[in-house]
């Protein structure tokens, strides 16, 4: 018989809700890139509005964590799980802000066509989303080694960002009238680069959750 079933349900709930939040963020990133690519301004407006739902679930989870700490006095791996969740939801919320940021850039571009077809930007988004999804699997599996490997993959997103930056710089140098539109796309790429950095932060939290050790991993060059 489980002797603390209320407590265990609450602990499970914060972790389940965190996974729900991660999938909401994942979807927001995908939608923001699709809306940018398709020049769908209505969808971009909806993405901005939907960010409020991510903020809300973050506060709901945080409240539940505080409630568990205050009423159940969690210890050992339970305490580490709660601390990890509290940190991870902060990173997820900021990742949601980056997706919202991409939607806002799309609205700023407005009716103008994109400077160039998007190639590496969607690649960055796909890579960051793939990292996020596997990071959540590592959380569920309590797999610190997987988390460490995923953190290393941030270099691939950084490399794509370098590529996008160089390409856009070429556009700007060749034709100064391109500068505004090139800058918009650079901002988009920067948001995606930051999203991948935050996945690395989450990987650090998973290592802490499993091993009890705080360890900085793969510091981004940006």
């Amino acid at each position: 018989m489980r002797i603390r079933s209320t407590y265990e349900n609450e602990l499970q709930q914060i972790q389940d809700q965190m996974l729900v939040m991660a999938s909401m963020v994942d979807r927001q990133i995908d939608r923001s890139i699709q809306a940018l690519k398709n020049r769908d301004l209505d969808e971009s407006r909806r993405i901005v509005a939907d960010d409020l739902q991510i903020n809300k679930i973050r506060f709901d989870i945080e409240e539940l964590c505080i409630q568990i700490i205050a009423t159940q006095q969690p210890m050992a791996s339970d305490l580490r799980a709660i601390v990890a969740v509290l940190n991870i939801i902060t990173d997820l919320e900021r990742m949601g802000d980056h997706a919202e940021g991409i939607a806002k850039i799309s609205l700023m571009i407005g009716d103008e066509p994109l400077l160039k077809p998007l190639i590496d930007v969607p690649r960055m988004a796909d890579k960051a989303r793939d990292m996020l999804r596997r990071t959540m699997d590592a959380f569920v599996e309590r797999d610190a080694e997987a988390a460490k490997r995923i953190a290393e993959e941030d270099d691939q997103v950084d490399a794509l960002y370098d590529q996008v930056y160089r390409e856009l710089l070429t556009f700007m140098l060749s034709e100064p009238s391109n500068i505004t539109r090139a800058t918009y796309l650079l901002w988009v790429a920067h948001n995606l680069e930051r999203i991948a950095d935050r996945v690395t932060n989450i990987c650090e939290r998973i290592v802490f959750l499993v091993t009890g050790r705080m360890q900085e991993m793969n510091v981004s060059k940006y």
Partner: protein
Amino acid sequence: MSALETATPTVSERGPSAALEQAGRVETVKLSAWYGDRQAVRDMSLTIQPNRVTAVIGPSGCGKSTFIRCLNRMHEVTPGAGVAGKVLLDGQDIYAPGVDPVSVRRTIGMVFQRPVVFPTMSIFENVAIGLRVNGLASRRRLPEIVERSLAQAALWDEVKDKLTEPGTALSGGQQQRLCIARALAVQPEVLLLDEPASALDPQATLRIEELLQQLKERYTVAIVTHNMQQAARVSDYTAFMLAGADRVGELIEYGETREVFTNPKDRRTEGYLTGRFG
């Protein structure tokens, strides 16, 4: 002779760091205890450091009280009780032939779950009793030692104007601090506390916990508690004990409290701390 003076001649033999060592280091070596035929504690080996609070935690019946009672030879007071292994106080075996148990209990004082206040005695006499019985202080010096002990037990300000009143007139928390003052009066090196706050309300409990932080500056402090949060709050080191299928208590894990409570090494410690075993 002060602890530092005792340590000084051995510095050259034991290296410079020995000069910093404080008296009151308690080391148990394969300590076991019995009640008649029934073994209660098996092979406990650990070191209780001076100027630190060490908590002994574990479920009911794991032998934690028995263990701590072995540390000042209180266990042998129980009829049929037996002890094996060693308890070393600053390297000296307190169970060695010729060692006087009364003198051990003076050097290693103990405070119990229920405050033992002598009902016919005043507050002053309740503190002074140990000194009188042991002939440790002249009548002239008694008031000074009683005041110092009550001050160290954080009770002086509350009782200084009513020292002649009965000790039983005090509240539960004050009575417990009175017992701590009595233990301190005979100038021990080590203070053992067996569930000292389990009969107290939360406010009185916090006062005792705060007091332990002050006491560790002068003494070695070991506390048995079934309250994990209390152990987490007050102690620097934690020993986790558990009785196996044979109902004999053993040391499962011992380490720095912050490590034991956030990242225990043994899955049984983890199970106990998170409330996942019965």
